[in-house]
């Protein structure tokens, strides 16, 4: 298991919006189920003193940390302020900031990520579903009932496609150590390379499923960086060039980042690449 466990205390930024309220509830349902810490406080500037889904709300992370012990934030604040929220998390010494928010301008994201690096804060996302360590902790919006504890790490640029693959694995009796959605934006705080390095240091993780898509070259870079057994799936074989496929980062630009060349590159490294999600469990099983 990587990034978070049942001892991790979480602050939700953007706690009083619809999304924030709803997911504080779900995260704390999960924390109660597994005996974890869960969300200890919410933050919304100007709403200090209120309550959100059963947790106290503060005006700032700084105020929240005076009353609570927390190591991570989960960020639901609107796109125009989300970069600021990542920087606030870092400046207050949180180890981990998980940015769920979509549509953050990429210049804001670059600034926030590089600022967070100065403080040693790990950023997951933006435009991501967060992470779950089955039986330990859930930070974000992944549906918890699909995941089972086990030896396979999952790292993905996607949301629902990750749930699909986790569901396939769980149905096949293959549990997960941690499932991480790194986000669908072109610039993200933690790449495949970063997450794979953590899985490599994690004694419970025996193999990793890498779920990529069109755009960029992070899949090949990640695969080349690790000695862990990998199984990959790349979405977007049928995606036309120069069209953004839902995610800001899912675009074949200047003839680069198409799915077939990624698949060729991965297969060239000896990695099994599934041609559809349902093939993944059988490809992973030999490594367990």
């Amino acid at each position, binding site marked *: 298991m990587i990034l978070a466990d049942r001892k991790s205390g979480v602050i939700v930024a953007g706690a009083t919006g619809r999304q924030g309220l709803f997911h504080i509830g779900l995260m704390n349902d999960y924390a109660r189920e597994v005996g974890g810490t869960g969300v200890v406080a919410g933050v919304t500037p100007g709403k200090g003193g209120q309550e959100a889904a059963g947790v106290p709300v503060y005006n700032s992370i700084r105020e929240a940390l005076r009353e609570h012990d927390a190591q991570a934030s989960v960020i639901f604040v609107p796109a125009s302020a989300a970069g600021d929220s990542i920087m606030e998390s870092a400046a207050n010494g949180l180890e981990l900031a998980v940015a769920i928010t979509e549509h953050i*301008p*990429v210049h804001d994201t670059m*600034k926030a990520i590089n600022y967070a690096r100065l403080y040693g804060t790990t950023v997951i996302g933006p435009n991501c579903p967060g992470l779950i360590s089955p039986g330990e902790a859930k930070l974000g919006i992944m549906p918890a009932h699909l995941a089972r504890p086990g030896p396979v790490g999952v790292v993905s640029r996607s949301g629902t*496609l990750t749930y*699909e693959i986790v569901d396939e694995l769980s149905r096949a009796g293959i549990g997960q150590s941690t499932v991480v959605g790194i986000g669908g934006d072109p610039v993200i*705080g933690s790449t495949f390379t970063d997450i794979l390095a953590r899985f490599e240091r994690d004694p419970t993780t025996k193999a990793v499923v890498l779920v990529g898509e069109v755009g960029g070259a992070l899949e090949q870079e990640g695969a080349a960086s690790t000695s862990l057994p990998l199984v990959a799936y790349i979405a977007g074989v*049928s995606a036309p060039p120069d069209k*953004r496929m839902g995610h800001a980062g899912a675009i074949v630009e200047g003839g680069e980042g198409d799915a077939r060349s990624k698949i060729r590159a991965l297969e060239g490294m000896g990695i099994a690449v599934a041609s559809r999600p*349902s093939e993944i469990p059988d490809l992973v099983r030999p490594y367990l």
Partner: protein
Amino acid sequence: MKLREFEGKRVFAEAGIPVPRGRVIRPGDEPGDLDEFGDEVVLKAQVDVGGRGKAGGVVICPTAEAPARAGDLFGTTIRGLPVTEILVEERLPIVHEYYCAVMVDRSTSQPVVLFAEAGGVEIEETAKNDPDRVRRVGISPLLSGLPPFAVRDLVGAAPKALAPIVSALYRAFLANDAILAEINPLAILEDGRVMAVDAKVIVDDNALARQGIAQNRDLSEREREAERHGFSYVELDGDVGVVGNGAGLTMATLDLIEHYGLRAANFLDVGGGADRERVAHAVRLLALSPGVRVIIVNLLGGITRCDEVALGIVDAGVRQRIIVRMAGTNEEEGRAILGEHGYEMYGSMDEAVAAAAGGTR
């Protein structure tokens, strides 16, 4: 969103980068007095495609012939796009062509500045075959501009007059929320002046509002309509409509459609928490697209309520065959509603797409 050349040059000029003197003309415009541009002019079709020069979109002619030649150019299409705007510019005596660009580097999460001593049409070949001839310097986005050492490292032994252009291009990149700002060629003229002869600027789609851009021109009318409903939508050329939730799952559905020998008509991601109304909207939007014969709905999520989705599909009331795969809360209720109305529902995406393949072959 891609800016057109003349818009990109306006952005460059604002940042202090010299650009050729010129004017945009549209069909029916009086071109007016072009003599101020000298004896010869360049007519450049303002279409949003690459390889414009090779496709006949750039014409060099004596100034006196310019109105007639522009008239001809307006009647043509460049790689399928009609020419509705032409940039008329002075023709410049170029001695050497350099290349300079700033872009977002996904691998390092920083901007990267590129500079090459040999610019022009062959730059892509150079970048591929001889990457060392393109100098690259990554810049911390926490800085408000290029530090002098970076400019020295980029420009190297090239003329010093290029240095302020490189700095200005970086400022333009920051000020315009660009994901790419490129000058190719960056020209040195006979008289020693430096000039951005072409301009390519792509603005981050997530920053259009704060850049004062009301409408994303890169999207079709139907794609914009979908965006207003909060959908991500891309038109394709097949006959199988697709509604999915989440970009990755929707792409995977498209790929599965291809895997089964079918062709998708579109990519439509309804986004999170799809409810009755959104699903009905999405299905109707696809049903109205020309050539859609069958629609596959593939929704997965812990919080998606299958009974809501089923009601949305029934509400849409379209004539095409609809094949549904969904998983989530109230799956049984959803299946009952769909069954009552004669719709097909499957438990896995493989089964759903296979059913479409069986039925349309």
